[in-house]
C-alpha cells in the first residue's frame, strides 16, 4: 500500500493444536491507517491468527514484529497496553454488568477523586450507542438485551479503548443491515479520520469489499493471496476462498404434493409478541424476518416450549400443545429448534458426538447409550453437514465458529423432525458453508418437512424461503411469497 514499513508484521507463523496444524507459515502485515480484511472458509485459521496477534496464544512458531521490533506478547493485557484491541468472535461480555460498564470494561472513567465516574460512563455509553442507532437504557444489565446489542457493545468497547490496532473478528454477525451500515461507516471513519489500523474479518464479502483496502485470503491455515480491494471482485474472492467456483445453485424445490399444514400458530401472545398467526405446510420453507426486538426469536423459542406465552395455541401436525409444554414435549412431537446462540446451546467442552446425540439419546442409545452406537449415529450427520474436521471425539469448542454452527444443526438430523425451526442458521458461516446449510434446509423441505427460518439477515431469508413473514414490534406486519425477484431493500422497507 505505502512504502512506509508496516506497523505490524507476522512472518511464517505456524500454530499447532495437538496433532492439528491450524496455521502454517502464514504471513500478514498491517499499515497505519489501513483496513486489512482477512477472509477464508470456516476453520481456515483466521481467528487463530488473530488470537496470536492479540496475545491470547503465545506458543507458536514464527515472528511477531510490532513497530519494527520483534516481540512476543505475554497476555491480552500486554497486547492492550501496546494498543492492540480485539473484538472476539465469541463475544466476551459480562452479562450481569450494565451495558455502559460493558462498554468501558477494564478502563472505567474516573473522577478527579479517583472514583469510578458512573455518570460520565453512562452518558458516553448512551451517546455512542445512539450514534450507532441504539437508543437504549445503558444502566440495565447487558443480559437483558439481544445478541445484537451485546455485539455492538463489544465493538464499541474496543473502539473506545483507543487501541491503535483494532482486530474485528466477525463484528457484524449478529447485526441487522441498518446497524451493519452504521458500523461500516464507523470503521471507515476510524481508518480515515483517526488513522487507526484495522483488521477486519467477515464472511460477508460485500461488507469486506466496502471496508477493506487489502484482503488476505487464508485457506487450510495457509496464505492463498493478498489482494487490493479495488483490484478484485466478489466472485474472485469467492474462488480464492473456496479454491474453486461456487456452485451457487441451491437444490430446486420439488413439486409440493397435497397441501398439509404441519405447524399452526393461532393468536399467540406473550411478552415479546402479540396475536401471531402463522401456518407452515409440509414441504415449505417459511422465512420469519425481523430486526432485533421484533420478537421473532422469542416466537421461535415459544414454539419449542422455551418461552412462556399467555394465550393462543401451537399445533403440530394436528396435535395442540398444552400451555405449559416443555422442549421435550416439542421434540417428541417432531419439532427441532436451533437457537441463535451457540454458546447457550452447545457443550463446548464435550465431544461432538455427545453434543449431537443428546436430543434424541433415547432413540439412539436406549436406556444404555454406548459409545459405538452414539458415534455411529453422529458420524453420518457430521459428514452430511460437512463438519471440518469430522472427528466425533473432539470437543465442540475446538471447532471453528462456523463448524460449531454445523454441529448445532447436525444434532437434529439424527432423527429427522417434522418441523425444523432454525434461528440464524448461517450465522458466522463462510460463503460455501452457508450454501451447504441452506441446501440442507432445502432438502428437508423436499423431503416433505416444514422449515421455519428465523433470521435478521435478509439474504438468508431470501435465499431459501418459499414464503416470507415479516415481524416488527412483536406483530406480523406482512406476508409475501418469495417469487425470486424480491430484493433485500424491498424486504427491509416492509418493517
Amino acid at each position, binding site marked *: 500500500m505505502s512504502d512506509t514499513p508496516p506497523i505490524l508484521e507476522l512472518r511464517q507463523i505456524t500454530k499447532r493444536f495437538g496433532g492439528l496444524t491450524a496455521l502454517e507459515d502464514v504471513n500478514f502485515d498491517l499499515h497505519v491507517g489501513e483496513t486489512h480484511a482477512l477472509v477464508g472458509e470456516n476453520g481456515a485459521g483466521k481467528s487463530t491468527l488473530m488470537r496470536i496477534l492479540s496475545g491470547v496464544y503465545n506458543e507458536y512458531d514464527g515472528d511477531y514484529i510490532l513497530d519494527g521490533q520483534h516481540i512476543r506478547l505475554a497476555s491480552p493485557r500486554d497486547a492492550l497496553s501496546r494498543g492492540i484491541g480485539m473484538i472476539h468472535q465469541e463475544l466476551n461480555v459480562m452479562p450481569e454488568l450494565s451495558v455502559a460498564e460493558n462498554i468501558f470494561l477494564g478502563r472505567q472513567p474516573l473522577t478527579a477523586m479517583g472514583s469510578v465516574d458512573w455518570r460520565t460512563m453512562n452518558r458516553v455509553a448512551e451517546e455512542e450507542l445512539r450514534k450507532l442507532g441504539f437508543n437504549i437504557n445503558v444502566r440495565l444489565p447487558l443480559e437483558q438485551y439481544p445478541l445484537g446489542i451485546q455485539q455492538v457493545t463489544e465493538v464499541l468497547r474496543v473502539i473506545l479503548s483507543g487501541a491503535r490496532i483494532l482486530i474485528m473478528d466477525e463484528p457484524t454477525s449478529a447485526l441487522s443491515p441498518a446497524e451493519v451500515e452504521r458500523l461500516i461507516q464507523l470503521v471507515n471513519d476510524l481508518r480515515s479520520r483517526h488513522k487507526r489500523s484495522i483488521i477486519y474479518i467477515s464472511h460477508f464479502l460485500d461488507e469486506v469489499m466496502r471496508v477493506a483496502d487489502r484482503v488476505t485470503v487464508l485457506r487450510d491455515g495457509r496464505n492463498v493471496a493478498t489482494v487490493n480491494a479495488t483490484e478484485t471482485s466478489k466472485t474472485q474472492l469467492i474462488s480464492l476462498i473456496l479454491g474453486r467456483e461456487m456452485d451457487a445453485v441451491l437444490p430446486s424445490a420439488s413439486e409440493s404434493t397435497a397441501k398439509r399444514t404441519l405447524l399452526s400458530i393461532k393468536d399467540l401472545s406473550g411478552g415479546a409478541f402479540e396475536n401471531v398467526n402463522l401456518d407452515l405446510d409440509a414441504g415449505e420453507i417459511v422465512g420469519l424476518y425481523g*430486526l432485533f426486538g421484533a420478537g421473532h426469536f422469542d416466537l421461535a423459542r415459544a414454539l419449542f416450549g422455551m418461552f*412462556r406465552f399467555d394465550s393462543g395455541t401451537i399445533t403440530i401436525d394436528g396435535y395442540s400443545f398444552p400451555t405449559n409444554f416443555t422442549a421435550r414435549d416439542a421434540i417428541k412431537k417432531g419439532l427441532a429448534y436451533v437457537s441463535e446462540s451457540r454458546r447457550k446451546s452447545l457443550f463446548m467442552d464435550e465431544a461432538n458426538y455427545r453434543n449431537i446425540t443428546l436430543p434424541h439419546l433415547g432413540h439412539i442409545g436406549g436406556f444404555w447409550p454406548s459409545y459405538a452406537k452414539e458415534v455411529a449415529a453422529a458420524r453420518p450427520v457430521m459428514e452430511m453437514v460437512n463438519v471440518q474436521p469430522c472427528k466425533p471425539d473432539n470437543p465442540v469448542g475446538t471447532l471453528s465458529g462456523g463448524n460449531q454452527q454445523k454441529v448445532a444443526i447436525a444434532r437434529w438430523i439424527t432423527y429427522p423432525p417434522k418441523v425444523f425451526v432454525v434461528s440464524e442458521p448461517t450465522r458466522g458461516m463462510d460463503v460455501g458453508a452457508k450454501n451447504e446449510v441452506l441446501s440442507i434446509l432445502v432438502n428437508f423441505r423436499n423431503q416433505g418437512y416444514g422449515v421455519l427460518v428465523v433470521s435478521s439477515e435478509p439474504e438468508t431469508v431470501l435465499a431459501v424461503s418459499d414464503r416470507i413473514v415479516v415481524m416488527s414490534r412483536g406483530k406480523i406486519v406482512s406476508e409475501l411469497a418469495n417469487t425470486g425477484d424480491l430484493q433485500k431493500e424491498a424486504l427491509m422497507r416492509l418493517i
Partner: protein
Amino acid sequence: MTQTDAVTSHLHEEKRSTVLKRSLRTLAPLWTLLALMLFFSLASESFLRPINLNNILVQISTLAILGAGMTFVLLTGQIDLSIASMVTLVGIINAHMFVNMGIPEPWPSLAAVGVATLLGLLSGLATTRFRIPSFMSTLAMSLIASGLATWISQGRTFFKISEVAAFLGSGRIGGPDGLRVLTVVAALCLLVSFLVLRYTRFGRYIYMTGANPSGARLAGVNTNLIFTAALAISGFCGGLAGLVNMGRLGSAQPQVIDSFMIDTIGAVVLGGTSLNGGRGGIIQTVIGLLIYGTLRNGLDNIQQLDPFMKEFITGVVLMGALIINLLFSGRSVRDRT
C-alpha cells in the same frame, strides 16, 4: 433509519418498565425482611423494642464484618471456607502475644490481623498459582489456621483480653448508653466495602472477574491478582472479626465456632449475591444479614417456643423466607433457555 428508531423506541419503552420491575426483583429480599419483621412483631411483644433492634445489630456485627469480606470473594466466584478458623486464630494470637508474651498493644492486634490477611493471601496464591479450587485451598487453610490456634494456645482459653479488643468488642461511643463500637466497626467495614466495590476500578474488576473470568482476562484484567486480593481481603475481615468477636465475648477460645462460616455465606447468599460470581453486592449482603439476624433474634424473642422445636422452626421459617423472596421477585421469567 426510521425503522431502527421505531424498533429502538419500542425497546426503550419496554425497558423502562423493566427498571421498576427489576429493582423490585433484586430487592425482593427487602420485602422478605419486612415480612419477617412484621411476623415477629406480631408474635412477640418484646421484638420491636429499640433495645432489641440494637441487639440484632450487635448480634450480626461479627457476621457483617465477615460478610463484607465474603462478598468480595463470592463476587469473584470463589469461596472462603477458612473465615471461622481465622476468627479463632486471631483471638489466640492476640491473646497469646498480649498475655503470655507481654507485648503491648497495638502490636498483638496488628500482628493477629496481619497473620489472617497473610493466610488469606496464601489461599489466594494457592488458588491462582496452583489452580487449586478455592473450596479446597481455603478448606486446607482452615485446618491450618485452626490447627495453629490449637497449637499456640495449647488448648487453653484466654480470659484476659487486650484493651484494644475490649474496646472494639464491648466499648461504647458516648457514654454507657452510646453506640456499640462493634456496630460502628461493622458499619464502617460495610461502607468501605460498598464504596470500594462500587466506585473503584478495583471493585469493578472484582465484578468483571466474577462475571466472566476469561472475558476479564481478555479485557486486560489481571484476574489472578483479583482472586488473590479478594481472598486476602476476606482474610483481613476475618482478622478484624476475630478481634471484635473476642472483645464481645471477653475471651479468646481455641475452639472454632463452625457456624460463623456457614452463617456468613448463608447471609450473603440470602441477600442475593450469587455463588457463581458477578452478581450481588454489599447492599444485598446488608439485607441478607438483617434477615438472618431478624430470624435468629426473633425466634429467641418468642418465649413460648419449645426449645426442642426451635431449630426445626428456624429451618421452616428460613425456607418460607426464601419462598417469599420468589413471590416478591415476580413470576418466572419468560425466556426459559
